[in-house]
C-alpha cells in the first residue's frame, strides 16, 4: 500500500476548474518559469482522470452544480484545492447574491491557498503541502465527503433552492 500512496503523492493529475480570475495564475505555474510538472502535476482534460480539483476563484451557484458533478465523477482518492480568498469566505464577493461564500460547505476542501490572487509560488507551495498531506494520509476530503454525503447534499440543495438534489441523476 505504501507504494501506491507514495505514487499517489508524487503523481497528481489536476483538473483546474477555471472560474474566477485565479485561472490566469495557472499558465505561469505550468510553464517553464515555475514548471509544476516537476512535481508530477499535469493538467488533465477530464475529471475522470484527475486527482485534484482546483477551484480557481469564486463560484456562482450555477457553476457550483457543475463543480459538484465534476467532483463526483472523479475517482477516489481525490483532493480539492480552494484557490484564493473567494473560496474561503467569498472574498470580494462576500455580499454577492449569487456566489458561493464558503466552498467547504458543498465539497470537502483539502487545502486552501490564501491570497487574492495567490502567486504561482504559493500554488507550488500548496501542491507540496498536499503531497506531504497525502503521504501522511491526512488529505481525507474524499472520505469526508463519502461519510457526510447527506450533509453535503443538504447544503447543496439549500443553496440550489431545491428540495432534494443528486449530482448525476436529475
Amino acid at each position, binding site marked *: 500500500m505504501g507504494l*501506491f*500512496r507514495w*505514487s*499517489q503523492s508524487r*503523481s497528481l*493529475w489536476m483538473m483546474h476548474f477555471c472560474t474566477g480570475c485565479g485561472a490566469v495564475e495557472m499558465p505561469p505555474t505550468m510553464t517553464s518559469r515555475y*514548471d509544476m510538472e*516537476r512535481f508530477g502535476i499535469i493538467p488533465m482534460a477530464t475529471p475522470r482522470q484527475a486527482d485534484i480539483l482546483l477551484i480557481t476563484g469564486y463560484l456562482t451557484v450555477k457553476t457550483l452544480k457543475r463543480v459538484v458533478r465534476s467532483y463526483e465523477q472523479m475517482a*477516489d*482518492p481525490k483532493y480539492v484545492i480552494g484557490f484564493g480568498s473567494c473560496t474561503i469566505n467569498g472574498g470580494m464577493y462576500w455580499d454577492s447574491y449569487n456566489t458561493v461564500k464558503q466552498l467547504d460547505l458543498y465539497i470537502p476542501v483539502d487545502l486552501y491557498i490564501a491570497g487574492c490572487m495567490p502567486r504561482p509560488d504559493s500554488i507550488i507551495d500548496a501542491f507540496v503541502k498536499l503531497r506531504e498531506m497525502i503521504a501522511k494520509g491526512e488529505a481525507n476530503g474524499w472520505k469526508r465527503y463519502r461519510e457526510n454525503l447527506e450533509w453535503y447534499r443538504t447544503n447543496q440543495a439549500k443553496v440550489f433552492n431545491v428540495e432534494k438534489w443528486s449530482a448525476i441523476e436529475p
Partner: protein
Amino acid sequence: MVILEFFLVLIGITALGLLYGGIARKWSARIQRRYGPPFYQNFLDVFKLLGKKNTKSHGVMFALGPVIAFTGIILSLFFLPLGNSRPLLSFEGDIFVLFYLLVIAPLGMALGAGEAANPNATIGIARGLTLMLGYELIFFLSAIAVMVKFNTASLWKIVEIQGTFPKWNLFPFFLSAFAGLIALQGMMGEKPFDLIVAPHEIASGPMVEYNGKYLGLLQLYHAIAIVVETGLFVNVFLGGGSILTFILKTFFVFMLAVTIDNIMPRFRIGQAVKFYWKYPLIISLLGILVVFIWR
C-alpha cells in the same frame, strides 16, 4: 523456460516503455526550457492509477476494452523480434500477422470507449480510425519495399539479412524509411498527429471516461506500444543487433518522434489524412520505384 523468457520480455518491455515515456517527458520539458518531472514519473502515474479506488465503469465492454487493448499489445510484442537475438514468436507469424495484431489494441480501446456513450470518446475514435487510413497505408508501403527487395515477409529474416550498422536498410531505402518515419509519427499519435487524444479539443478522446485502473492499463498498453511500434520500424529499417542495440535504436527513434512532437502544432483530421495521402504516399511510392529500379 520459454514462458519465463516471455514473461521477462513482457515485464522488461513494459518497464522500458514506461521509462521511455518518462525520459520523453523530461526531454520535452528540456526543449521547453522546463525542469520536467523525474524520469520515473510514468511509473508513479501507473502505480497511482492502478491503486485508485472506486473506479467507475460503464459496462462490461468498457471494462474489457483496456484488457483487450493490453492483450493485443502483448500479443504484438511477442510476434516482434527483439533485434537479432530474440525472435520470440516471429517465426510463427510474419510481418502481415503483426500488422493485423497491432490493430487489436486500438480496436479494443475503441470498443471500450464506445460503450461509455461519451461523444468525445467516439469522435476521438473516429479520428483515430480515419488517421489509420493514412499512416497504416504509408507504413505498409514503406515496409513492403523492403519485403519485395528481400523477397520475404518474415520480420525475423529481414532483421537477419540486414546485419549490423553499415548495412542498415535505412540507407538503401532512405525514401521508404523517411515515409515510414512520418507514418510512425501518426502511429504513435505524436504531434502533428495527436488529434486522437487532443485534450484541448475533445478532452483526451477515447480516454475521456477512463479512470483508475482502466487508465492504468491503458498507460501500460501505451508504454508497450511505444516499444512495439518503434521496434517495428527499427527491425525493418535499422538492422539487427543485440537486444541492447535494439533498445538503443528504439530509444533514438522514439526520441526523434518526441522531438518532432515538441516542435509541431496539431493537424486537423482532414488535413492529417490528406497530408498522408499526399507527400508521404508519394515518397513511399518513390521508394518502391527505387526498389524496382534497383532490382
